Structures are given as C-alpha cells and as structure tokens.
C-alpha cells in the first residue's frame, strides 16, 4: 500500500500537449476514480503512472519514491486493462501466476498464493480452464487475479468493465468495491462512466482536455460542482442549464422568466443549473418558478422523465413514477432555492 502523488505532470505526443500539468495526491488505501470524456487524457495519466509512457515533465511519486525513471516492474504496481490482456495460450492458473514468474519465492509458495487469490475471486474450480472456456466476467476476474497475485502497492484499472454487458458490469463493480474493502490497496481506476465513478470512488477526479476540472468526494462533485462541465457531466440525466443576464430584479433567463437571485460576478452573463430531480410540480396556488408545456414523457417505472418546453428552451424533470402528464399539458415547476446552481457563462466557473 502506498500514497501516490502527481506533480505538474505534463505529457506531449509529437509536440501536441495532451496533459497540461496534473496535480493530485492520493492517500494510502484510497480508491480514486478518473472520469472524463473520451480523449481527455485519463489513460495517458494512468499509463505514465504505470511507467508505460514517458513523463514529458513533472514528477510521479509512489510511496516516498520518485518513480519517473523506474521501469514498470520496479514500481510495484499492477494494472488491469480494458480488454483483459489475459493470454489465450495459458490456463487460468498460469495466467494468474504469470505475475509471479519473475518473483523470487519457492514454487510451493507461488502455488499457495495463486490458490488464495483464486479463492478470493471465487475461481478455484476454474484454474485449469483456458480463457476460451470462460465468460467475459470470468476473464475479467482472471485479469484482476493476475494483478492481485503480486500484492502490489497500487492497482491501476483502465476501463476494466467497459467490455461487459450492463448487468455484469454492475456485478463486477460491486466485486471490485468489495475487493478494495477487503485488501485495502490504493486503487486508481479510469472510466468514462460517471455512474461507475460515483459508486466506486472515495474521491473522483474529473478531467477534460488534459486538465483536472475538479477533485472531490462523489457527494462534493454532485452537490457543489466546480464548473459547468462538472455540473453537466456528473448526474444522469444531466443538469438543466439555462442562460440569462444579471439585471436589477435578478437573473433574467433567455427562457423567459426571472429568478430573484444576485450571485456576485464580474460579468453579466450567468447560467443557472437545476438538477432534473430537484424540479417538482408546483401545488395549486403556489407561485411557480417556471411554466411550460410537456413535449416528451419517458416513464421509467419508479420515476418519470418529463421534457418541458419553456420558451425555446427544453428542460428535463424527474418526477415520481405515478405522475404521467399528457403531451402538451401545461406544467408549473418549482425547485428549492438552495438547489439552484449559478455559473459564469463565459468562464464556466461556479458562483457563490
């Protein structure tokens, strides 16, 4: 187990800078998830940590060692890849034991270690099978087993679940979480699925275009997003964004209504954000925040998504499943004042 620190990490591929100074401290035993859209540099960061990509500038520390110039094998890390990278020509036992090939320990100890790991992953009966005789989830478990067997200081996962179907993905997610609770090793996990990030992470690192946007606990990033990007990226369906101008009476939104709030800002352009789940139908006689007509209704069982046209803007509200408004019906929506987020439209930064 070890801490991990990234200091001003920069990566350049053929003169194109793809990471622009990443700073992050990961605590011992922490489960940190990198999340962000495709191409934002998550894998590159992870691969630099693993020693598979050279560091252009900046420092990587694992434990109290600067590892910039160490070979992957000298960093005492283990990595699980998106497409498992388990060897089709070897049995499960050989695959799991592969990481121990170069370890100096008696053969009997190695076998014992493989059996232990297989037991943790409940694969003991599968040890003599070939990968071709395993299901996708089992293959992924073999890959995790191969990473565990060496008892590394840090586990690195690069989108390990993205090749699995939805159900299996949920199940493996749970297993990885349990595994972390059990072995307590520091884990750095990359995904572009925000649900995976929210459910697994102690802390989430949200990246975009080679910059870290926000680092925080799942609750932090959900409740107090640092900027427009984070606000829209985290949470499904996405936060509703309405642009407007700061006036004497409050924020006059382009959608055609005004919110009586005056966040401090240097510019007049303000965007407000409201999560779909915070919007509820107003009671009879209660003053509504906004009004519009229903354009689409998506019943999901326990809840219903209703799309509402407010002027030229469309917003989404999540309402209890028993509410099924007719298309074109007028709805009046309210939201608690403290659940309205304010952002500077130009810079995207959150405002107090």
């Amino acid at each position: 187990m070890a801490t991990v620190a990234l200091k001003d990490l920069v990566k350049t591929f053929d003169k194109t800078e793809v990471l622009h100074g990443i700073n992050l401290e990961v605590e011992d035993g922490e489960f940190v998830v990198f999340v962000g859209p495709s191409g934002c540099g998550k894998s590159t960061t992870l691969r630099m940590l693993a020693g598979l990509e050279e560091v252009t500038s900046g420092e990587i520390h694992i434990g109290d060692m600067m590892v910039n110039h160490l070979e992957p094998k000298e960093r005492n890390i283990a990595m699980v890849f998106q497409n498992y990278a388990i060897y089709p020509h070897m049995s499960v036992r050989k695959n799991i034991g592969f990481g121990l090939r170069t370890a100096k320990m008696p053969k009997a100890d190695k076998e014992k270690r493989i059996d232990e790991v297989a037991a943790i992953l409940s694969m003991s009966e599968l040890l003599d099978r070939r990968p071709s005789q395993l299901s996708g989830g089992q293959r992924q478990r073999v890959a995790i087993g191969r990473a565990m067997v060496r008892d590394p200081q840090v586990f690195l996962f690069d989108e390990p679940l993205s090749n699995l179907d939805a159900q299996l993905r949920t199940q493996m997610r749970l297993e990885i979480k349990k595994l972390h609770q059990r072995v307590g090793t520091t884990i750095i996990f990359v995904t572009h699925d925000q649900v995976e990030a929210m459910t697994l992470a102690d802390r989430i690192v949200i990246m975009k275009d080679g910059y870290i946007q926000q680092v925080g606990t799942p609750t932090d990033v959900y409740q107090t997003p640092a900027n427009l990007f984070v606000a829209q990226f985290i949470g499904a369906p996405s936060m509703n964004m309405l642009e407007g101008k700061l006036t004497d009476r409050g924020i006059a939104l382009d959608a055609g209504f005004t919110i009586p709030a005056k966040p401090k800002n240097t510019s007049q352009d303000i965007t407000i954000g409201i999560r779909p789940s915070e919007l509820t139908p107003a009671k009879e006689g209660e003053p509504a925040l906004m009004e519009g007509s229903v354009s689409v209704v998506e019943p999901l069982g326990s809840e219903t998504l209703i799309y509402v046209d407010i002027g030229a803007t469309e917003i989404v509200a999540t309402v209890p499943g028993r509410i099924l408004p007719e298309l074109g019906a007028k709805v009046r929506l309210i939201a608690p004042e403290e659940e309205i987020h304010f952002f500077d439209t130009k810079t995207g930064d959150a405002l107090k």
Partner: protein
Amino acid sequence: MSMTEIKPSAATLDKQLIASYSHINPGKIIRWTLLFMGGVVMVMPIVYMLSTSLKWPHEIYNLSIIPDEPTLENYIFVLEDGRFYKWFINSLIIATATTVSAVLFDSMVGYALCKFSFRGRMFVFIAILSTLMIPTEMLVIPWYIMARDFGWLNSYWGIMFPGMMTAFGTFLMKQFFETVPDDFLEAARIDGLNELQIWWSVAMPLVTPALSALAIFIFLGNWTAFIWPLIVTNSPDFYTLPVGLTTFSVEQSVQWELIMTGAALATIPTLIVFLVFQRYIIRGVVMAGLKG
C-alpha cells in the same frame, strides 16, 4: 470484442456442408468442374511420378498410368545406393536449420519493426522489403563470390547462408504482430518480463498460425531449392537431394525411373512437415477467435 462468434462448432460446419450439397445448381456444376480440372492438372505429374517409379526402364516412355509389370526394383536400387541417404540427410539438415533460423530471426526482426518505435524504423523496413524485388538469379553471382572468398564453397553453411533470414518472412511476421494487442505486451512488461521474454513467451505463442505457415514455406523452399545448392557445391558429399537426383541422369543415359523414385521419396518429408504444422495452423485460427 467477439469472443465466440468465429468458432462455428463442428456440428454447424457439417450442417453447412450438407446444405451446400443439397443445393446443386448450374453455377455449382461449373465451379466443381473447373475445380476438378484444376485438381487433375495438379495431380497428374504426381501420378506420373509414382507410376514411373514403379516401371521397368524399358517401359518408361510408355504413357500408361498403370505399369505393365509393376516393380519395386527402383526403390530397392535407390535405397541401397548410399548416395541417396547422404543427399537426403544433407537436405534435411539444411532445410531444417534454415527453417529454424529464418523463423526465429524473421519473427524477431518483424516484432521489433512492429512493436518498437525507433529512429529509422520505416527506412529499415523499406530496405528489407526492397530486397524482395531482386530475383535469386541476380543474387547468385555475388553470393558465389562471397562464398568463394570466405571459403564457404562445398559446405552446409555455404548452402544455407543466403536463406538464414528472409525479407518475406520478416514482412509476414511484422504484419501478423500487428494483430497482437499492445495490452498483452504491456501487461507482461508490468509483470516484470524483459523484452526478450515478452517476445518469446507472450508475442510468439499468439502468432503460431503465422509461424507455422512461414515454417512450411521456408522448409519447402529450401527442400526444393536447386540453383544455389547446385552452384555452391561440386562435391557429391554436399549435394542436396534435388541436385543429387539430377546426377542420376548424366551417368549413362537419363534414368527417369530412378529420378522419379528419388523424387517420390523426397516428397515424404514435405508431407510430414505439412501435416504436422497444418494442425497448428488450425489450432492457431481457433485461438485467434478468442482474442479479447
């Protein structure tokens, strides 16, 4: 990420076969006829080779396929003649050593060209490829001068050295290594293997179909090679089988029945090589189906 779809089970294959038999149409008849004719053209020389090897000398210009008086006399003669064994062994040593060497070095170079990025990689690759454009006939003279100056005439090494590595094999292996995902190699790198170990125990097993195909090509090429072994040797002790067999023709008169007998015997190792490696090719294809 197709894990299973490439592997139709034996049962479905059978069904497909049955289905294809039950739909006989004119297109199919034409296709089968052409294939049959092609097959006849391919098989005839082999049939004549076998038939001639079973004939007495006076009968060899008679074009009948079934000999009037079939005899094993020629086989007995060839097999009792010590030279045949000598040449057979020479060919076997040379073809085997060249195959092992070429498969090893071609795949090593192909791997390096495919999986490592270094300055001048493209240049090296193109330089290797461009040697494919030079026909053997043109290379024979420089090779000969080289062999003579180094004192390699009349030696195994002299026969083998031009084929110890091949441009074609390098190209083939480079292309096949492209199908090996980098993740496999990186996983091994993290697990602490050095580059040579990664090549040998991770990358090579993943390209066995290509290795088998290459081994077959190279073995057959060297087994049947004629021009270069003829030029670089003049002592019967170092003749390979194809070179040696022609000497049956110059002694008194052309002894076709003996040449054909030798040729028939010479096909045995090629058949064995093919049968042995073909199994690996099929297994390799099945294995490729589960690549993640």
